[in-house]
């Protein structure tokens, strides 16, 4: 069985967030980690590898420094890694990203594709399902448990107050939740091996089944009008009034601000 896991390097929430003048994230200057949902997806794939001997390939689209994250995935136990990187692909929204990654996936053998539910930077949860759409595959999102049975996968899909058990024939795509499992640590020997391995690097020109209209910032229908850091709230206003007067005061303020 061939499992491909799509992973993304995202800003470490412990570091500061910086933006480019065009409103997109300045990824080059931020500390980066493997997106938590993606890491859970990778762990799920590695557990299937432990059980069935499946081959696990990780794929990412990003800056050359995403190589670090791919090595981390190799050190955890992935067999192969692919980095899709090209300046022409920069500034991609979910549409351009999923179009590009799908074009990359067409070059690989897969029975099962696992992506994270969503990345902690964009929080759209769109790329996984879009990839499935591009590839014409069934998709099961919000996986909180995954089991392989013959040529099918059985997935518990998280729902508000219950879960759905969904069976799909492979090839298919699953989006994983961070709650799916607790990802393993790397091993020291795995790290050394990871740096001896070759990471496959694909540029725009290696992706033949891809239209230029669907890549990069220009191929992104999403236009960011403005992006900014969270604005700090002021200290607020303290008033000492009895309860009845307080209510009147609050109501008058809300009216003043056109809230009510």
């Amino acid at each position, binding site marked *: 069985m061939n499992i491909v896991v799509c992973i993304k390097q995202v800003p470490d929430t412990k570091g500061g967030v910086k933006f480019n003048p065009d409103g997109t994230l300045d990824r080059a200057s931020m500390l980066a980690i493997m997106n938590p949902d993606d890491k859970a997806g990778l762990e799920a794939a590695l557990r299937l590898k432990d059980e069935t001997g499946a081959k696990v390939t990780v794929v990412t689209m990003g800056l050359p420094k995403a190589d670090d994250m791919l*090595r981390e995935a190799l050190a955890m136990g992935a067999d192969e890694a692919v980095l899709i990187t090209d300046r022409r692909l920069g500034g991609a929204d979910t549409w351009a990203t999923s179009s590009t990654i799908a074009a990359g996936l067409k070059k690989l053998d897969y029975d099962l594709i696992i992506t994270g539910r969503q990345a902690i930077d964009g929080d759209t949860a769109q790329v996984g399902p879009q990839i499935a759409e591009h590839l014409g595959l069934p998709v099961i999102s919000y996986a909180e448990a995954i089991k392989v049975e013959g040529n099918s996968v059985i997935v518990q899909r998280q729902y508000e107050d219950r879960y759905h058990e969904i069976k799909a024939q492979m090839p298919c795509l699953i989006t994983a939740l961070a709650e799916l499992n607790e990802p393993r640590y*790397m091993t*020291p020997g795995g790290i*050394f091996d990871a740096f001896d391995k070759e990471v496959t690097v694909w540029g725009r020109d290696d992706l033949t089944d891809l239209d230029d209209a669907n890549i990069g910032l220009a191929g992104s229908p999403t236009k960011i009008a403005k992006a900014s850091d969270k604005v700090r709230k002021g200290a607020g206003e303290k008033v000492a009034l009895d309860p009845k007067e307080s209510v009147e005061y609050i109501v008058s303020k809300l009216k003043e601000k056109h809230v009510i």
Partner: protein
Amino acid sequence: MDFTLDKKHEMARQLFREFAQNEVKPLAQEIDETEQFPRENVEKMMKYGFMGIPIPKEYGGQGCDVLTYVMCVEELSKVCGTTGVIVSAHTSLCCDPILTYGTEEQKQKFLVPLASGKKLGAFALTEPGAGTDAQGAQCKAVEDGDSWVLNGSKCFITNGKEADIYIVFAVTDIVEDAKGRKSKKFSAFIVEKDTPGFTFGTKEKKMGIRASSTYELIFQDCRIPKDNILGPRGKGFGIAMHTLDGGRIGIAAQALGIGEGSIDATIDFVKERKQFGRPIAAFQNTAFQLADMKARMDAAKYLVYNAACTKDIYTQDHRTSYSIEAAEAKLFAAEAAMAVTTKAVQLHGGYGYTREYDVERMMRDAKITEIYEGTSEVQRLVISGAMLK
């Protein structure tokens, strides 16, 4: 000379740091208090390959280098000196001599389970009457048919009751020189737990590294297979000394970690603690003390990493000795750790003297690094001996 670490070593450090912070740190105070060996964490370290880092893959290890192993002991010791020494004693004092002196059969039988994390190792040289002076040793082994029969006791053995495989040194011969002076010849043996005649004596109640399971080992007509002699008969002293050269690098790394860990804890504290209306970090004395502490531990780090890299060269070319580098690293790092943890307690004031704060434990843990695997005085003998020969 290039002092920067390459990417794979940086990633290894990141792994050890995450593991130490997530798994080891939350238990450090508790196991110090209860003296409970951290079995669960040791099993996790076994699972993730921490117990065979510098051992070749063909013998169940991770196939990394000594520098990576040293960083592992350092990062673990930053949060828990006990966990650091468990890894160090297992790797340097049990796996390493089998790798260096063992036969292929011994490596397959003992090293593979040790390095792959199925079994835990220990090293038994010290006796009640023989510490630095090895000639005081009483434990002896006598050849009998296809066995060796061990009698005697060993004390202060790290991983004592928890280990599965022990390297035990015993007197096998007494030789006379031309002037008729007698001296004892030692041999090294591999002894498995549960061998009849091998039992445990008292558990030591220690000042620091309190959860590391330090026991007395007792051998009473303990019969071990003849094939379990490690290295040539009568060459045990050399094996012990060479093994301790490597062990000292592990302990130097432990000392380095303890010292660095006390600085980390102190930085957090001095930013929070307020006196005279401002954090004590704002006082120049605090800042200057911290600067001295960091400079001292960084100097120790270079000596420790240098010793590790020299041992790595030895791995490829056995003519390279790392004895002096190891002695210097251990001497300096241990004394730096003691001085720096003492300063860390001082900067914590009264709080530093209570068990609420990590630095109290770190100061107690630091002390042993000046004593075991060769006291600071022994390290001075080793270094000056080479200078004055």
